[in-house]
Structures are given as structure tokens and as C-alpha cells.
């Protein structure tokens, strides 16, 4: 029974990541024209990290990061590195916080996305406080909202 449940969760996680990654790359040009937008790739990695071990989450983060790097070309490797770390750290939170309580998941997605965007921005030499303290938090809020919609995928059916 437990094995079947785990398989269900794993299938849900894979499906969710593929869907979010596809939408992230497809809608990228549209999102770029908005002042703030959800980061679906980070959302996928963070949600997946809550379901799998640190090594697996880091691997998923690395692969997703490589795809992101291939799409944006500039500063190749930055997203792979940051998403690898994010996946790893996200998976470690499983030992600290158990379950999918909505307030926790919202905070988790918000903090994860904000950290990723701020770190990426600072790494490319950005120095705009507006991005770090306004645009990135708004992106993180939007990502949290999308994350809530994806939580049902994580539950065994």
C-alpha cells in the first residue's frame, strides 16, 4: 500500500515538474513583459524537493537549471548552480517541517523564490534595490499562488 502511494506521489511529482517547466519556458516571453510573474521552474523544484531526498532534489534542480541556462544563454551555469542548491536545501526542510500545511508551504515557496531571484540578480552584478525588495518578492508571491494550485498533484490518488 505504501509502495503504491509512493509511486502515485512520484508520478504526480514528475508530471507536475514537466508541466511547470513546459509552461515556464513557453510563457517566458509573456512573463518577461509583466512587471512581476511567477517563476514556475523554481516552483516545480521547490515542490518536488518536499517529496524526494536531497540528492534527487538537487539533481532535478540541476537539470532544470541547465534548461533555464540554455534558454537565457547569458551567465550559463548560474541557474543550474542555484537550483541545485535550492533543491538540496528545500529537501532538507523535510526534516524540520513535516506535512503540507498551507501557511508553511506559502512561506516556503515565497522564501525559496525570493532567495533564488535575489541571489541570481546579485550574481549577475545587479544593484537595484527595487528588484530585490519589490519585484523579487512580488514574483515570489505569484510563485506561492501557483504553488498552492499545484499542491493537489503532490497528494497520492
Amino acid at each position, binding site marked *: 500500500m505504501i509502495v503504491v502511494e509512493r509511486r502515485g506521489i512520484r508520478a504526480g511529482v514528475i508530471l507536475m515538474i514537466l508541466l511547470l517547466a513546459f509552461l515556464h519556458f*513557453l510563457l517566458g516571453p509573456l512573463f518577461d513583459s509583466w512587471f512581476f510573474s511567477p517563476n514556475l521552474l523554481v516552483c516545480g523544484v521547490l515542490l518536488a524537493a518536499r517529496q524526494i531526498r536531497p540528492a534527487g532534489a538537487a539533481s532535478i534542480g540541476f537539470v532544470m537549471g541547465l534548461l533555464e541556462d540554455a534558454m537565457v*544563454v547569458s551567465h550559463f551555469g548560474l541557474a543550474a548552480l542555484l537550483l541545485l542548491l535550492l533543491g538540496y536545501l528545500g529537501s532538507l526542510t523535510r526534516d524540520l517541517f513535516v506535512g503540507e500545511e498551507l501557511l508553511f508551504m506559502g512561506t516556503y515557496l515565497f522564501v525559496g523564490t525570493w532567495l533564488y531571484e535575489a541571489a*541570481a540578480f546579485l550574481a549577475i552584478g545587479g544593484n537595484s534595490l527595487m528588484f530585490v525588495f519589490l519585484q523579487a518578492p512580488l514574483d515570489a508571491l505569484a510563485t506561492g499562488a501557483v504553488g498552492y494550485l499545484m499542491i493537489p498533484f503532490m497528494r497520492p490518488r
Partner: protein
Amino acid sequence: MALPHERQLAMATTLRSSVLVPVLRLQTAFSDMSAMRVHLEELRRERDNLAARVLALQGVDEENSRLRALIGLAERGDVLFVPANLDPEGRAGERVKRSFVLDRGASDGILKDAPVVAPSGLVGVVRIAAQGQATGDFWTHPDFRASAMTADGRVFGIIRPQSGQSVMVLDGAPYQVELDPGTEIVTSGMGGVFPRGIPIGRVVEELSQQAGWAKSYTVQPAVYPDAVREVMVVIEAGDADLTAVWTVEDEE
């Protein structure tokens, strides 16, 4: 991140030509659709205007072909350049774009190190050419260098981007020569990458920080990465001097 820049671009191009192909095709289709919708009305208006002009310009096309053959511009315009659409790529919050992707590639004759130009001047250089697409760097990329000279050929130097800004720096100008603000800078043709005569920009002022017996100047670029979408890729330049291409355009 520790990989050499060209390896990074090669990896990006490989992923873009394999796993990411479906997404990129869909992106292009959506982008074309939205662009078409926006421009439909505009095109209708232009069509009506053009129809009227075509009637007035009958015979000019034939005359143009004859004159181009006469002065040797046919080859310069049709063989040396390949038109391409340029897509600047960058991360969220990245103020100055550094790299781009072209919708033409090796199958169109584009090779590694091919110069990319726009009607106003130098845009950048192709780094990786794959089937149907090419990846390159704008002049804003920290690795970008071009051998340059003043339009009158009096002063030579090396053009590089000023870190994190949309401004260039001309290094290595002789100490005893003073360049006036507004002096036009073009490619010198030395180094074998950029043919001679492509406009780069205009001198703004002398840099206060000097080193050794050479001067440096800030240069206002002829082309800003954010403002360019349609470009020409130089595919067969050899030792050609392209000064006349831009001179003809300026005169027009």
C-alpha cells in the same frame, strides 16, 4: 559557470536544438501570432500606400539592378550578408543584455566568428553556429574585443565594453593624439574577424584613468543591444572594406 564561454554556448545550443526544440517552436509560433495581430492593421495601411508608390516606381527596380551590377554592389549586398532575426537573451533584472540567439544558422552559411551588423553599425559576433540557429555575443559581453580605428584611419585601438554599462571604451590610442568628441570609430579590419569599415560608435570623452603611453576614450555605441531585432550577418567578408556600404546608406 567555470566552463570556457564557448563551451557554455555550445551546451546551450545543443540543448536548444534538442530537448527545448518543441518549446522554442511553440514560442516562435505564439510570438509570430501576436506580432501578426499587432501589425495587421499597420500592414493594411502600408499596403495601400505602397500600392500607390509601386505604380509610381515602375522601372526603378530594373534600373537599380543595372546600377548595382555596374558598381559591384550586387555581390556586396546579396552574397556577403545573411539577414536574421535577433533575440536578445538575458536573466530577470539583467540591465545590459550580453548574448543573443539568431534564427539563422550554419545551414544558411553562418560561421563561427561571423560579424553581426545592423543598419547603424556593429552589433556583435557569432560564437556558435548550429543548424537553423546561431548563438553570439553583443559587444556588451565582457569577452568582446574589436580592432578599431577612427574613420579617417589616423588612430587605431581596441574596442571593449565598459563593465556593466552600455558604453564602449577605445583602448590603446596613441598618447600624443587627441580625439575630439564625436569622432567616428569604425572597425579597422585587423585581427581577421571584423572587416574594415563597420561603424562602431562615436568618441564621447577621454577616460580619466590612463595607463602607460596610451590613451583610452569612452565611445557612444552606434547600436544598443535592446534596440536591435533585425540584423545582417557577414558571411563572406575576406579582406573587403565595408566602408562604402555604410557611406552609401548615410548618403541616402
